[in-house]
């Protein structure tokens, strides 16, 4: 234990610690990582290209892949949808009042884009894209930012040749010098300023979320009183539905639904997000959620009077793009039939 105490005592002597030889004693815990394990997890890419795999992709392919996997959130032209990140534009805005920070206007290293797309995107289906597709997407993002022309092919060979506009736009943390005046021997205690006037009020903006706190304070008693009645009502309504639902299947379906959650909500309080709300979807008319902006093909299907029967839903979920060319749903599809059955059972439990 004494060696650990020494460590704590040494926190202010980090420079001494850092040059000290490694501790002699090892605990003998853990096991050696295998090369395959390291290869599977160690995929980060550094600014000098360390970690970049062999591969290539062109702008044209990138546009297609982007449209399929990325555009639903980032827009067809990487301009961003709703509050999702804009990836293009914003050149020369960094010293403006509201800078637009994109890959083109802000990101200092191309490796960051490649690494992030490869490891963390698409949202809800990370690490499912091929190396070449990642190169292609990054090439397309560069093109969207007018940094390369439409003939451009990005590869591990020319990766370091791409110049990022804001590469020299960063300085290291300089607070200890530029803000040295915040270290004050004796801060002012009396008569520190002449007058105090209100210059801005949060109430004027009114962007604070509703809390419902003050109303809630009174609520529990009412809820307690209401609870028995609602339980009875639920019991009366439930048996018909529940008799048909296998709890194991439901549980599995809930798990499968995690793949859908990035875009869809279901259940009490659910709303349409990137994708429409799914309450009552099984057996519902196609394209019938109020206020949701469906793709043209989906609207067409709706106009034809189609219904999401279990069979149709299963076909759609297996291969969305094949079932309905041009659908906004960027999901690749559920490969296992079991998963489709389970998720359908799960969705059925949220019938209106």
């Amino acid at each position, binding site marked *: 234990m004494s060696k*650990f105490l020494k460590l704590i005592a040494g926190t202010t002597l*980090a420079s001494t610690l*850092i*040059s000290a030889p*490694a501790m002699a004693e090892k*605990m003998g*815990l*853990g*096991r*050696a*990582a295998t090369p395959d*394990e*390291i290869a599977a*997890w*160690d995929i980060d*890419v*550094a*600014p000098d290209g360390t970690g970049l795999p062999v591969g290539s992709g062109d702008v044209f392919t990138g546009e297609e892949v982007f449209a399929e996997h990325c555009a639903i*959130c980032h827009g067809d032209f990487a301009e961003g949808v709703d*509050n999702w990140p*804009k990836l293009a534009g914003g050149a020369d805005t*960094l*010293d403006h009042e*509201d*800078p637009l920070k994109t890959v083109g206007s802000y990101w200092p290293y191309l490796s*960051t884009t490649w*690494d992030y797309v490869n*490891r963390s995107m698409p*949202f*809800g289906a*990370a690490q499912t894209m091929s190396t070449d597709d990642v190169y292609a997407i990054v090439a397309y993002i560069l093109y969207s930012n007018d940094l390369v022309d439409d003939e451009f092919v990005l590869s591990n060979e020319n990766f370091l040749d791409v110049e990022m506009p804001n590469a020299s*736009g*960063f*300085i*290291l*943390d300089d*607070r200890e010098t530029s803000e040295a005046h*915040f270290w004050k021997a004796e*801060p002012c*205690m009396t*008569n520190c300023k002449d007058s*105090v006037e209100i*210059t*801005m*009020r*949060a*109430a004027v*903006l*009114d*962007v*604070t*979320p*509703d*809390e419902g706190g003050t*109303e*809630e*304070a009174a609520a*529990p008693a009412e809820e*307690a009183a209401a609870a028995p009645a609602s339980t009875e009502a639920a019991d009366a309504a439930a048996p018909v539905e529940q008799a048909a639902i296998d709890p194991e299947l439901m549980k599995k379906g809930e798990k499968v639904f995690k793949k859908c959650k*990035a875009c869809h909500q279901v259940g009490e309080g659910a709303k349409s997000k990137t994708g429409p709300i799914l309450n009552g979807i099984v057996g519902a008319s196609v394209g019938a959620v109020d206020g949701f902006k469906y793709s043209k093909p989906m609207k067409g299907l709706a106009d034809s009077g189609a219904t999401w029967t279990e069979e149709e839903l299963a076909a759609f979920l297996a291969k969305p793009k094949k079932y309905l060319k041009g659908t906004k749903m960027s999901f690749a599809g559920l490969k296992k039939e079991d998963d489709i059955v389970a998720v359908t059972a799960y969705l059925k439990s949220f019938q209106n």
Partner: protein
Amino acid sequence: MTMSFKGKPSRRAFLKGAVAATGSIAGASMANAAGDPLITQVQEWASGTGDGVDATLYGMPIQFESDVIRRNVEWLTADTISSINFTPIHALDGTITPQGCAFERHHSGAIELSKADYRLMINGLVDTPLVFTYEDLERFPRENHVYFCECAANTGMEWAGAQLNGAQFTHGMIHNMEYSGIPLRALLEEAGLDAAGDLKDKWVYVEGADASSNGRSIPMEKALDDVLVAFKANGEALRKEHGYPVRLVVPGWEGNMWIKWLRRIEVTTQAIESREETSKYTDTLEDGTSRKWTWVMDAKSVVTSPSPQAPIKHGHGPLVITGLAWSGRGSITGVDVSIDGGKNWQEARLGAPGTDKALSRFYLDIDWNGEEMFLQSRARDSSGYVQPSKEELREVRGLNSIYHNNCIQTWWVKADGEAENVEVS
């Protein structure tokens, strides 16, 4: 995830819940001649019985506290899966944040990773790349430390002006817990650092197991200093939303570096410059250049009560002003409070002596007679740093920094006890 740090005004009535305190000012101190019925009459709870043991096998707060909860600001992010919410600091006291209401920040949602499925890899410039199971980690000598974890974007919405009306929303991206875990140093030395050569210019890159695989680069000096690989908080397992079963604790440094669901530690020759350390968590100055590697959280404080969500509901007379203070550069040595918008200051009382990189609670007990107040607090730390005013910060950084806003906060407390977030000259 992109956060838009400026809200669009809504038509919602401001402070819907601005219930005047008038109704509750009566009470024990104003009992009628016959006496307070809560005392003179036998109450149900004093006669019947309450819940037996096992009524709740893992307890939640009593129903009367149902408003002490995390809250989010919907317009900030596109989706709750990649978003943040806020600790109800206006309603807490002491310094330890209960896990159940401690703010959450996810980039790809809170995942469920069991201890049995948990693996931690150490690779890169080490003598032997290693894989640890959860059980392996439990066999290393353990330490306990209390540290605050603050998101670099805490108070980020207030750069351009007073915006959100409540300490929870302006300062609630923070929590403070007692962590049990093992020094990162012990794991690095178990793998052996001879292969890394001179450690001065080396880094560790740490990443999480979730789909965002949030990764950050930490200089070796910090990694060998006080970073913890933690698996318990406040005595119990980490919550799912805080990285169960294992998270990194990087004392005093911005919360984004406290990797949750920690799965890999790589010793490298350079910073990886991942998305979260280039495109995000960098601070843009007025001239368009941006500071990077601004890891340390500067000294900061806020009055938590009274505040917009915690108005004064009692009458005139004794009033407890309280708040929180913290610094990533060391311990809090003192907090000054002003009730006149910064003209005059008086030293508040610390609930306990400040400790390294942990929250301190302060109190100022005054006699309040309904006068309007501009409440401010100013933290001082063991490095000699004094929390700056918003004006002082803007002079150096402009309005576009988003992160690291540690300015002095002002609450305008009115004669009726209500408080509002304002900026003053």
